[in-house]
């Protein structure tokens, strides 16, 4: 081997190593920024947080199996997806098994950055691409509320994911593709009707997580968000909730269906939406009006 060729080999080796290092760094779990960490650590308002809790519907996934009290958050209801089964964890304030020993920053890292307390990637079964859009105030208030619910003991089984989705590190690449680019989270929620509606739909309400079609990697197809999609467990579908799907619905029809389940055609919403309706029955009417108003402004996209 000549000197030139071995120099080339070393050069290529350096480039490959540099790319691998860059990839490693780019896909590393990245917690919330210091400003957000400081702001979220201020005292929260549990009463306001209770409304955020119902808007976000935490209990839909984190309720202990067989429980009807939405504040028994021991987790463990199996969430079946094309990638395997997730077992949403205990988020009750139990110090050993829940999040009772967490700081507000730990909570914000999980919710807004998809980073676990031990600094690893969380799977986006926790819809953090939506929660990344939440205001710091809502996250802080929600954390304050979650401290007030009863502690539930017991841990949930580990997730049972198929290879290659079981490679946690790969979630870093997924985040590069699908995490929203948010330089600095909102300090507080927007207040005007349309902005607030958009905030509730895209942020805490995370409507698009079920109502948007996804790529084979499980990322929401941005151009077709809210256009309707098959449910993750394969049983039935979440309908188109853009103005395309809701063309015959007035804003008050939408708001009324969200809080009672009753639709203008005389049907009653079921499936996983029934739990959403139970939660939304607990939020101020103004928030439902904002959601309804915003959904009517979303134009259908793509081929559905």
């Amino acid at each position, binding site marked *: 081997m000549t000197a030139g060729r071995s120099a080339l080999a070393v050069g290529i080796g350096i480039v490959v190593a540099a790319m691998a290092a860059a990839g490693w760094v780019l896909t590393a779990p990245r917690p919330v920024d210091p400003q957000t960490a400081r702001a979220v650590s201020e005292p929260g308002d549990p009463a306001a947080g209770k409304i955020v809790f119902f808007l976000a519907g935490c209990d839909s996934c984190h309720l202990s199996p067989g429980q009807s009290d939405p504040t028994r958050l021991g987790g463990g209801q199996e969430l079946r997806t094309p990638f395997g089964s997730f077992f949403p964890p205990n988020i009750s304030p139990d110090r050993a098994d829940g999040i009772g020993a967490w700081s507000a920053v730990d909570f914000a890292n999980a919710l807004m950055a998809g980073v676990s307390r031990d600094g690893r990637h969380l799977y986006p079964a926790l819809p953090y691409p939506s929660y990344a859009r939440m205001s710091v105030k809502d996250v802080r208030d929600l954390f304050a509320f979650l401290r007030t619910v009863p502690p539930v003991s017991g841990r949930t089984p580990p997730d049972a994911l198929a290879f290659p989705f079981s490679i946690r590190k790969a979630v870093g690449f997924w985040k590069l593709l699908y995490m929203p680019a948010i330089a600095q989270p909102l300090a507080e929620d927007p207040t005007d009707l349309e902005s607030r509606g958009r905030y509730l739909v895209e942020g805490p309400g995370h409507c698009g997580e079920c109502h948007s079609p996804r790529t084979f990697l499980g990322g929401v197809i941005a151009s077709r968000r809210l256009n309707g999609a098959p*449910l993750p467990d394969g*049983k*039935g*579908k*979440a*309908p188109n909730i853009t103005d395309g799907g809701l063309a015959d619905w007035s804003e*008050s029809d939408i708001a*009324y269906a969200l809080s*009672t*389940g*009753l*639709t*203008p*055609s*005389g*049907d*009653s*919403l*079921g*499936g*996983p*939406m*029934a*739990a959403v*309706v*139970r939660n939304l029955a607990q939020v101020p009417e103004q928030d439902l009006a904002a959601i309804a108003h915003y959904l009517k402004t979303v134009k259908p996209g793509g081929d559905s």
Partner: protein
Amino acid sequence: MRMTGKGSAAIVGLALSAGVALAASGADAIKERRALMKENGEATKPIVPILKGQAPFDLAAVQKALKTYLNAAEKMPALFPPDSKTGDTHALPAIWENTADFDARFKKLGDDATAALTEVKDEASFKATMPNFYKNCGGCHEKYREKEN
């Protein structure tokens, strides 16, 4: 079990559970229960604007709706024979795994409809009774109907 005629199905149905008027075979049962649910929806359609305060209270429409629900509640439990799990249906397998709960929900729906027929006399009693009554619908659709909307 495969039934060929309504007659034999009815005999077996009676033999299995006294008091059940008619047990239909799979495809017929699906058709019949879908028709009953369709009637429920049609009967509810004029009630929703009243609940929302966008239409005047109409006692006749409310009573008609309640009688429709009562009729459905009485007939539905017999319309889920084992050979009606698949076909043109959104019924979930959970129905046949939780028969006691499923039947109890229709019993409650019927009882609530009967009670509401006496209780609802005017707009005030309507508003006090019906929003709660309609929770029966979502409760069952959540567990037992494949989500289609």
